[in-house]
Structures are given as structure tokens and as C-alpha cells.
């Protein structure tokens, strides 16, 4: 039996490339060796490039910078973390998290009816069109889309013009936190629609029919059947909208106002301007810790089955 299995391996006696043939035969026989060799490059990449850099950052956060020489001082201190818990930085962290939460809720509310329509109402052709419409903005540069919003929101911009036309008076919400909220909600919306759509599409029609047969009205069906089944999709989408907002610093920089600093902006200032790597590292750990708890919560809600 074994001989027949070995048979497809290349002839071992051929003079050219005999070593190569033996190697290939050896690999063919030992599945574990094959798997190790195939997986080790990406695994090494993950370990060295990704995890190691995180560890280095963690360690750096406990160092400090000499005020005279501006060089790293390799002595252990908690000063950076103590500084994090001062009102300036707590305000900035609070603003970032609150904005991420607000954007996530906004996107969930907008995405659910849209995804429902796509998944269960639209014709196959209409669905295709809607899908394209949702994904099309992702083809354009993030920056171009943010700049478009600046033009819309600024004083005398498109929005103000429109409001004046319909008799509501001029609006001037450019360079405010409201502007940031609008732009974030727009930019990350596709990342919410797609997982919610996937979750809704998987719900069998029979469940909804059964609900109807048992006397449930639309609202009750939505509340007790659709929503619980779609929840993992919403949570999966929220991972994207939440984490993407949490880590952003371009939108606050471009559309934010006088008090719109995000965690990312402060990290940027500390690296690019102050060369204070330790404090930047300590600050960078904040979103990581927040996301760890967020992901644990999301897993408990079954989000990862929807991805």
C-alpha cells in the first residue's frame, strides 16, 4: 500500500536534480515538515515584526527622555503613565473614546435598514448596484473624501448654501467636533454595512415566516428574531468603526476645531515634534488596552462568527 502512495513522487534515480527529487520526496512524506516550512515565514513575520515591535513599544513606555540631552534614558519609571492620568490627557482619551462610540452607534443605526433592504428586499440587480454604491467611495482616497467634506461644511460651503436656499439660514459647523462626527460616520459607514448585510442575509426566510405564522407583527419579528440574529454582524461592524475612529488622527487634524485633539494627534506631536518616544509609547498603549477589552466583549457577543 505504501509503495503505491510513494509512487507519484518523481524518479529518484535520474541524474539531473537527484537531490531536488529526494528533497521533494521527503517533503511529500512528512506533512508536518511541509506545514512548518510553509508557515514559518508568515509566522516569523508576525512574531518578529508585529509582536516584537509591540513589546519594544511596551518597554519604551517605561523609559524617559533626558531634558538636557533629549536622549532616551533607560531607567525604569512610571512617570509616563502618571502623566497619562492628568486631566489634559484624560480629556483627550475621553474625547477619542466618546467619538468612537458615537460614530459606531450612528453607523449601526444608518447601516441596519440599509443592509436589510439590500439583503432582503432589493432584487439581485438592485443589490449589485447598492453594493457598488457602498463600496465605490472606498476606491477614492480617504484624503480626497475628507477634503470634500471640508468644502461642504465650511462657512459659505455647500451645506450652508443648501440650508439658506430652503430657508433655514446659514450654518457654520466647519472645524468643530460635530463636523468630525459627520465625517467619521460617513467614512466608516461601508465597514458597518457589509458585515450587517452578511449577517442579515444568512437568516433563513423560514424563521421570519414562522414568526409571522405564530402571530408576531413586523415590529415584534424585528425585535425578537431579526435583531438578535443580526447582532453579531452589528458587533463585527462596530469593531471596524470603533477601532478605525479610535486610531485616526487625520480627520481631527483636517476637520477638527480648536479642541479636537485625538490620542493619535498627541502621539504624533510627541514623536514628530518633541522626540519624546517614551510618552508617545505610553499613550499608544491606551487604544490597545481599550481594543483588547472591546474585542473580548465582541467575542462574547459572537461577533467573530460573522466576520
Amino acid at each position: 500500500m505504501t509503495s503505491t502512495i510513494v509512487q507519484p513522487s518523481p524518479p529518484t534515480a535520474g541524474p539531473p536534480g537527484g537531490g531536488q527529487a529526494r528533497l521533494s520526496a521527503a517533503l511529500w512524506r512528512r506533512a508536518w515538515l511541509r506545514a512548518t516550512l510553509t508557515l514559518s515565514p508568515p509566522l516569523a513575520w508576525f512574531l518578529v515584526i508585529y509582536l516584537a515591535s509591540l513589546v519594544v513599544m511596551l518597554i519604551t513606555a517605561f523609559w524617559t527622555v533626558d531634558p538636557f540631552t533629549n536622549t532616551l534614558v533607560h531607567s525604569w519609571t512610571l512617570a509616563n503613565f502618571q502623566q497619562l492620568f492628568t486631566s489634559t490627557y484624560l480629556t483627550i482619551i475621553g474625547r477619542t473614546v466618546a467619538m468612537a462610540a458615537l460614530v459606531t452607534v450612528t453607523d449601526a443605526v444608518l447601516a441596519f435598514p440599509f443592509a436589510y433592504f439590500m439583503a432582503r428586499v432589493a432584487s439581485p440587480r438592485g443589490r449589485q448596484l447598492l453594493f457598488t454604491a457602498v463600496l465605490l467611495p472606498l476606491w477614492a482616497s480617504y484624503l480626497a473624501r475628507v477634503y470634500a467634506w471640508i468644502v461642504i461644511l465650511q462657512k459659505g460651503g455647500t451645506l450652508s448654501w443648501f440650508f439658506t436656499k430652503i430657508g433655514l439660514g446659514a450654518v457654520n459647523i466647519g472645524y468643530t467636533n460635530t463636523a468630525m462626527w459627520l465625517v467619521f460616520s460617513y467614512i466608516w459607514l461601508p465597514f458597518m454595512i457589509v458585515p450587517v448585510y452578511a449577517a442579515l442575509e444568512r437568516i433563513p426566510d423560514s424563521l421570519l415566516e414562522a414568526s409571522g405564522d405564530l402571530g408576531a407583527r413586523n415590529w415584534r419579528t424585528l425585535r425578537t428574531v431579526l435583531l438578535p440574529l443580526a447582532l453579531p454582524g452589528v458587533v463585527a461592524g462596530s469593531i471596524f468603526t470603533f477601532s478605525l475612529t479610535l486610531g485616526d488622527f487625520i480627520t481631527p487634524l483636517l476637520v477638527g476645531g480648536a479642541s479636537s485633539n485625538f490620542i493619535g494627534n498627541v502621539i504624533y506631536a510627541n514623536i514628530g515634534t518633541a522626540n519624546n518616544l517614551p510618552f508617545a509609547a505610553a499613550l499608544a498603549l491606551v487604544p490597545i488596552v481599550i481594543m483588547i477589552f472591546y474585542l473580548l466583549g465582541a467575542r462574547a457577543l459572537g461577533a467573530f462568527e460573522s466576520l
Partner: protein
Amino acid sequence: MRIWTRGGALFAAASAIVMIAGCGSSGGGSASSGSSGGGSATQGLTPPQAGTAVPSSVGKTEGHLNLIAWEGYAQPQWVKPFQQATGCQVSAKYAGTSSEMVSLMAGGGGGQYDLVSASGDADLRLIYSGDVKPININLISNWKNFHPFLQNPPFNTIGGKHYGISYEFGPNVLLYSKKAFPSAPTSWSVLYNKKYAGEVTVPNNPIQIADAALYLSKTQPSLGITDPYELTQPQFNAAVNLLKQQRPLIKKYWDLASQEESLFQSGTTVVGAAWPLQTNTLVAAGAKVADTIPSQGATGWADTWMLATKAPHPNCAYKWMQWATTPKVQAQQAIFFGETPANKLACPIMDQISKGSCAAYHANAPESYFQTLKFWKTPLAQCGNGKNDCVPFQQWVSAWTQITG
């Protein structure tokens, strides 16, 4: 793009003085409140390369030239004719910040780079780390046509030795809308005036504290501020408090020159701190704005081409310094980037390229005008007064985070 990092870039000359003061036995880590450290900053110390001999003539060119430059400092319009004239093929590596320039130049340019277009805040650091060496200023004939204050400025000339040749500079001006201000404001106080609440914009840059300090040095002489980059804790606190009071008036702290342009173009803001670049772009676009340097003076920046200690192509480097200081290149660079040339003869050529640009960039201003400019340098714990009680730049950055929220 350099534009928005330039300010941020500012930082770090710190390490310059490091070399100087830190070399003693004070031991780096202990000095946090200015109790130790090596005494008065740069006085009495000699840059490592001060004794390096300078060439008496420019020899045969090597065929290559490697630059570290701000983006926009090696444009084809003046690089191509240079290559044709000298046979030196130019490769430019663009740096985003002053810190990046300093690290690229580590080890005297690593035997790879020849010249760096360093800003005033990086210069001392490069000089005192021995990464750049003196040049023979007599080989650069246009030097004598420079504005006097850029011939031997303290940030690139030490003990009579020139560690490079000044290139271009610019002031930080007060930009205002002519609608809101029929006549030019004469004081920076308009930036702190509640009348313009929600219509003010200033750069998102910790060095802005120096602008507040400069204003206070004239309006509150009792604070005793003599140098806006060397502030003791009480002086620093006063400047920070002033900026905290200013915060509610601010519409936006701008990071990019283009942001400020659109703020003024749309009429969102009517007054702010700016570079001549924004004024000129806005005026060209038809906006009713103008800029001025108020009575308290202004801050500014100045760049220098500096020669790497291990420059592999020194003759091409000298050719470049000669070329870059010619009136025509000075004018082209000034107009391309929106700054002022060091060479006074560039003025008529600027007007040829773009009418009125010489006056717009103050290239023909009298020497008294330039004396009002306080050029950027990095705030260090070591003050010019020989004490170590000044607030270092890291604290400027955290205070700035507090101010801007």
C-alpha cells in the same frame, strides 16, 4: 509638505548643547530641574571639526552630489541647469523634520551625503556633534551680496568659522482680512482680542509659545523676557496662560498652510499667524487679505546649506553652494517655496518671474526690518544667562497639548 512639519521640526537642537554641556561629569539622568548640567551653553567650547582645513580652491568635480533637503529645495528648474553646467548628478533625499535631517547626517553624513539644507534649530546640533565641517566662504562669491544679518549668523557661524552658507529665510507674519481691518493692525494683541472670538487661527505648533513670549516681552516688561526661546518657569507660565486665554478665540489651530488659506478664503477667520506664503497665495486668488509685522516684531526661520564632514563629493558640493546662492536660483527658490532669499541681488529677478514678489516677500526690506525677527531655535534647559533654569522643549510640547486640548 515640509511646510507643516517645519514648525514641528523645530525641536531638537537640544542634543547640540548636549554635546557641549553634557560631556562633563554631571551625568545625564539626574538633571531634571536645572540643578546640574554643564554651565553656560556654547561658550568656550569648540566644535569638533573647527580645526579641519578648508580647501583654497574648488577642484575637479566628482560627477555626483547627494543632498538632504526640504521638499521643494531641489527642483528640476534649477537642478537641471546645474547638472549640465557642472556634470554633477544630483540625488536629493527629502527629510520631513529637523530631527530626521540630524539623524540622516549622523556620522558626518555617513560618507554618503554631501550637503544638508538644515534649519536654524538643527544647525548647532550638527555643528557640535561634528557632523558638519567649516567651509571656505571666499569660494562662494555671492556671499558678499547677502543681507548682512545672514552673512555670519550665530546659528551657522561659530568663532569666525562658517559651517555652511545661508540659503533662504522667512518671517512669521500677522495675516488679516482687509474687510475686518481697514488699516493694518499694529500689534499682535489682535490675536488675543475677544472681539475676534471664533475668527482667529494660529499654527498648531508648540513654538507658538515663543510668539506669545515675544508679545509679552514688549507688553509686560516686568517679566524680564529677553529671548522668547529662553524662558524661565514664571515667564513660560505667563506665556502659556496668555495662550490659554486665547484658546476660546481660536477657530482652528492650522497644521497645513493650505488649511489657513481656505479658512481665510471662506471668511471663516479674519486674523491669524501665518507665513508670507499664505498671504501671497491668497492675494493671488483674489482674497482681500494682507500681512504685517506688528510693532513687537516677529519670529522666523532661516535655512543653511551645510557641508557633511565625510562628504564624498566636496567639489560638487562647493559648486552647489555657489549655484544655490546665485541671484537667479535664490529668486526661483524663494518664489517656488514662498520664502525670502539671502542674496539681495535676487530681488529684481524675483520681480521678473512674478511681478511684485520681491516686495511681497520683503526681500528688499531695510536691515532694520530683519532686526525685528527672532529666528527659531530650540528651547533648552540651558539659558543664555549661564543658568539651567529655562524650560526645555518637551515641556513646551506638553504645555501646548494642554493649551489646545
